[in-house]
């Protein structure tokens, strides 16, 4: 297929939405007259390995199932990659559904999962946001951004990937997992659909990672639900993955067998459309849009968006215009600081975040449509929008750096999300204040909390953390000033400044060193600096920075020296020297 011919085969109609990785358009395939969705991915605007995009395409292209969004083609046009997918209706809106709806959706999803699993694929990110609904009521599983293909159906994966609230305990524990992990996520999705949000939705996602393995599995409560429904969820949410049934087995479950026809879902669409019309919003529903990429640590502290969470928390008080205002006011050139203030964060997450450069070049309006929608939570259920929760993963088992990054991004973003974004935080100090909180304060609390064994101490600490978080919400400027003063005072005190110098990691007295929770180790790592993406990519030997260095990085402080400047020279010299020694005899 010639490159140009590929593109000219389609007539692009209009934009459906723009998201994390590009813009999705509705288009017509001229040769067949079929309506398709085309995603344009600007490969220039991403450091992301093209390989990651490619691996998603290869998984998609090997799927042909009525329960999975159908991939059609992909081709390059200049540095834009076009991915053509079957055009498919709406995203699912959790809540708002009754038991009968959920039963149908679960059955369709199980059929999709059964197909994937027998193909040796694990979706790894099953949740309502990744489920699409057609006007005829058909249900499809979308977003293969983090799906994986096993070469051996019996083999397992260890990669830590997915969206925390939906993640199976074995995935979190990294003890090796298989296709059963999707079943757990399906169970959570069922709960999400009926309750409007996943279990623990009001808990910090970081904490959720502790809770899921530690607590007993969530159950469906409430007398209004049938016993079958409750049992179905209980079956999906068996913590021991060996005893958790497969998709095929669950298809025989009574709850599923007695589910109705997909046409019954049409009323959801109708309701949706009416509701949508009433809002008089520009009809820019988003259709197909996957999480094309896993978390890239570098720009991502704000990526953590938890859709369904916002359903519960956001109070929807005219924030849209506020965020938009903020976007306008925000000088994006303020990067790298821009992303630390919540209002732009919500904006940036969806569209800008990954490519500040692009935004500089063309601050286009259409993007605002999506960003605007963000704080006004309900709309997110149109398609799996940009608001789709970012997934993250450890790039490889031995790359602690990457893993560190993924961890840190949790606190920052979700905080932002759980709080109504505040438009007024655009002063520099406020931005620094927010950054301070996201990068330093909050992770520090997390770490100390994880290290603290004593319950009373932990409680005290949480209260302080809450108080601080309140300060951050109301007065990030003051927060910044406070921290500045604290630091100055510490520095001015000769004893303290020596004692609290970054090189010394003081171990907390009275606290058991080995923290009781295993995942604590993960949290401890969370302090590190998420600037390593390109480094990991270059396989450089960067060590995780001392967390305290972050403080030094604050403006007005000394900038860390250029110690690494010599690194390249040293490496190359080493090679030359080594090469001399190894030179082939006689050559």
């Amino acid at each position, binding site marked *: *297929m010639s*490159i140009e011919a*590929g593109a000219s085969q389609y007539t692009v109609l209009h934009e459906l939405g723009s998201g994390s990785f590009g813009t999705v358009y509705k288009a017509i395939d001229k040769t067949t007259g079929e309506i398709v969705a085309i995603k344009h991915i600007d*490969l*220039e605007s991403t*450091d992301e390995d*093209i*390989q990651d995009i*490619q691996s998603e*395409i*290869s998984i998609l*292209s*090997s799927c*042909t199932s009525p329960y999975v969004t159908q991939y059609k083609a*992909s*081709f*390059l046009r200049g*540095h834009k*990659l076009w991915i053509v997918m079957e055009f498919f209706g709406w995203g699912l809106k959790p809540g708002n559904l009754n038991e009968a709806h959920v039963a149908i959706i679960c059955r369709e999803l199980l059929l999709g999962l059964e197909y994937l*699993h*027998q*193909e040796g694929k694990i979706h790894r990110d099953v949740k309502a946001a990744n489920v699409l609904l057609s006007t005829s009521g058909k249900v499809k599983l979308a977003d293969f951004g983090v799906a994986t293909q096993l*070469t*051996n*159906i*019996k083999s397992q994966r260890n990669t830590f990937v997915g969206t925390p609230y939906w993640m199976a305990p074995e995935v979190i524990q990294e003890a090796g997992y298989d*296709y059963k992990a999707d079943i757990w996520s399906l169970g959570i999705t069922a709960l999400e659909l009926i309750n409007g949000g996943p279990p623990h939705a009001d808990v910090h996602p970081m904490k959720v990672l502790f809770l899921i393995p530690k607590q007993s599995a969530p159950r469906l409560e409430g007398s209004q639900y049938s016993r079958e429904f409750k049992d179905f969820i209980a079956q999906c949410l068996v913590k021991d993955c060996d005893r958790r049934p*497969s998709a*095929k087995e669950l298809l025989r479950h009574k709850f599923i067998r007695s589910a109705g026809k997909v046409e019954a879902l049409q009323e959801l669409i109708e309701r949706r459309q009416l509701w949508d019309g009433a809002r008089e919003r520009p009809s820019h529903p988003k259709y197909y849009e996957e999480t094309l990429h896993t978390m890239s640590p*570098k*720009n991502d502290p704000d990526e953590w968006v938890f859709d369904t969470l916002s359903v519960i928390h956001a109070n929807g008080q005219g924030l849209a215009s506020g965020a938009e205002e903020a976007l306008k006011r925000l000088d994006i050139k303020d*990067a*790298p600081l821009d992303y630390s203030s919540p209002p732009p964060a919500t904006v940036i997450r969806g569209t800008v975040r990954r490519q*500040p*450069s692009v935004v*500089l070049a063309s601050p286009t309006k259409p993007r605002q449509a999506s960003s605007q929608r963000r704080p006004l939570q309900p709309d997110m259920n149109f398609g799996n929008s940009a608001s789709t929760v970012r997934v993250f993963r450890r790039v490889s088992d031995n790359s602690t750096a990457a893993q560190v990054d993924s961890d840190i991004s949790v606190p920052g973003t979700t905080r932002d999300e759980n709080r109504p974004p505040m438009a007024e935080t655009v002063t520099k100090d406020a931005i620094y204040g927010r950054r301070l909180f996201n990068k330093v304060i909050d992770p520090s609390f997390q770490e100390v909390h994880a290290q603290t064994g004593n319950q009373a101490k932990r409680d005290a600490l949480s209260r302080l953390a809450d108080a601080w978080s309140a300060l951050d919400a109301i007065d990030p400027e003051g927060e910044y000033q406070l921290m500045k003063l604290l630091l100055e005072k510490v520095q001015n005190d000769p004893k303290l400044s020596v004692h609290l110098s970054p090189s010394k990691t003081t171990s907390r007295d009275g606290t058991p060193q080995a923290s009781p929770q295993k995942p604590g180790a993960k949290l401890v790592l969370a302090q590190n600096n998420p*600037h390593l993406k*390109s*480094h990991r990519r*270059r396989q*450089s030997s*960067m060590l995780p920075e001392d967390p305290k260095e972050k403080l030094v990085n604050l403006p007005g402080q000394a900038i860390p020296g*250029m110690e*690494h*400047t*010599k*690194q*390249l*020279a040293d490496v*190359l*010299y080493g*090679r*030359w020297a*080594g*090469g*001399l020694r*190894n*030179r*082939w005899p006689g*050559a």
Partner: protein
Amino acid sequence: MSFLFGRRPRTNTVDLPKQAKEQISKLDGPGAAAKAEELAKTLGQMKFVLQGTQETESSPEQIYSLVTGMIQEDLLYLLALNLYRLPFESRKDAQVIFSYVLRFRPPSASPKSEPMALSYVINNRPEVLVELCNGYNHTESAAPAGTVLREVLKSDAATAIILYHDPSEGSPGAKGLTGIQPEARQSGRGVFWNFFDWIDRGSFDLSADAFNTFRDLLTKHKTIVAQYLSTNFDLFFNKYNTMLVQSQNYVTKRQSIKLLGEILLDRANYAVMTAYVDRGEHLKICMNLLRDPRKMVQYEGFHVFKVFVANPHKSIAVQKILLINRDKLLEFLRHFLEDRTEDEQFIDEREFLIKQIRNMPPTPVEPAQKPALLGSQAR
């Protein structure tokens, strides 16, 4: 899975390869469509024997007899050759079959030994691997063949077979591993060299898949590759630079520049690197990349450029080019990719290069060391 076998008489595992072979041979004749369907069923059964299902285990004895049957019937070769003609699902089945068969060791064999079918292919039937590569000739077979290949390329012997395949060297047919002469220069007609075309000309999917395999070929088994690149230095880098680095295809260009940087900075390829950065014309190509309108191309190009500049023993040719452009380069680098403010390593390296260029002596100096003579130049 009783339903699979319940309805019709069960074909003996041993007969499956024979049956598949017959069905393949009839793919051309009358009733080809029906035959393709039968073949699809046979392959489905073979897949089932090999991998079992999520609920049932497969039996090593059955696998063993299936694998021996496949070797006897030369089925691996036939499958590879006809992969693109199979129906969609069967291509995936074939891919699974390949993966399992080429990985299978009888329970009695040591876990470190070479899987039996793979060993057979490497020593007696290298054409299987060649035909798998030729899977890139067709859109249909590219992805399944590529998947199998990348798995097989974990074996250094298989890598060597593909790299050193060269039909022009007399004795066509089964040479296998023992036929390889690492010192002999390649004619450029072997299957490996087709990758350049597949990568450059294919559709996005095909090209990208071929590139992944190509990368594996060049990075997984370092000593083999170092030797290979040294021997075939000119042939390889001529093609690499003209077809890949300067490709019109954005993805090919960007990926291949990146891979070039990785190859050069790999310790095992030290001799290749010194020879590469010795050439003025290589530097020219690279400096043009820095001026490419596309930022990511510039960025990838930078990581090759830095090797030229950091080389403490720059050749006269390289020094000349750098010196002539010194002021321009310094100015250029100062503003090069300025918006990468978060990429500390990049910023450091850029500073380092500026310093290096600034401190170069005003006239070219004879380097204290010359690159190791490479096959291309010495012989």
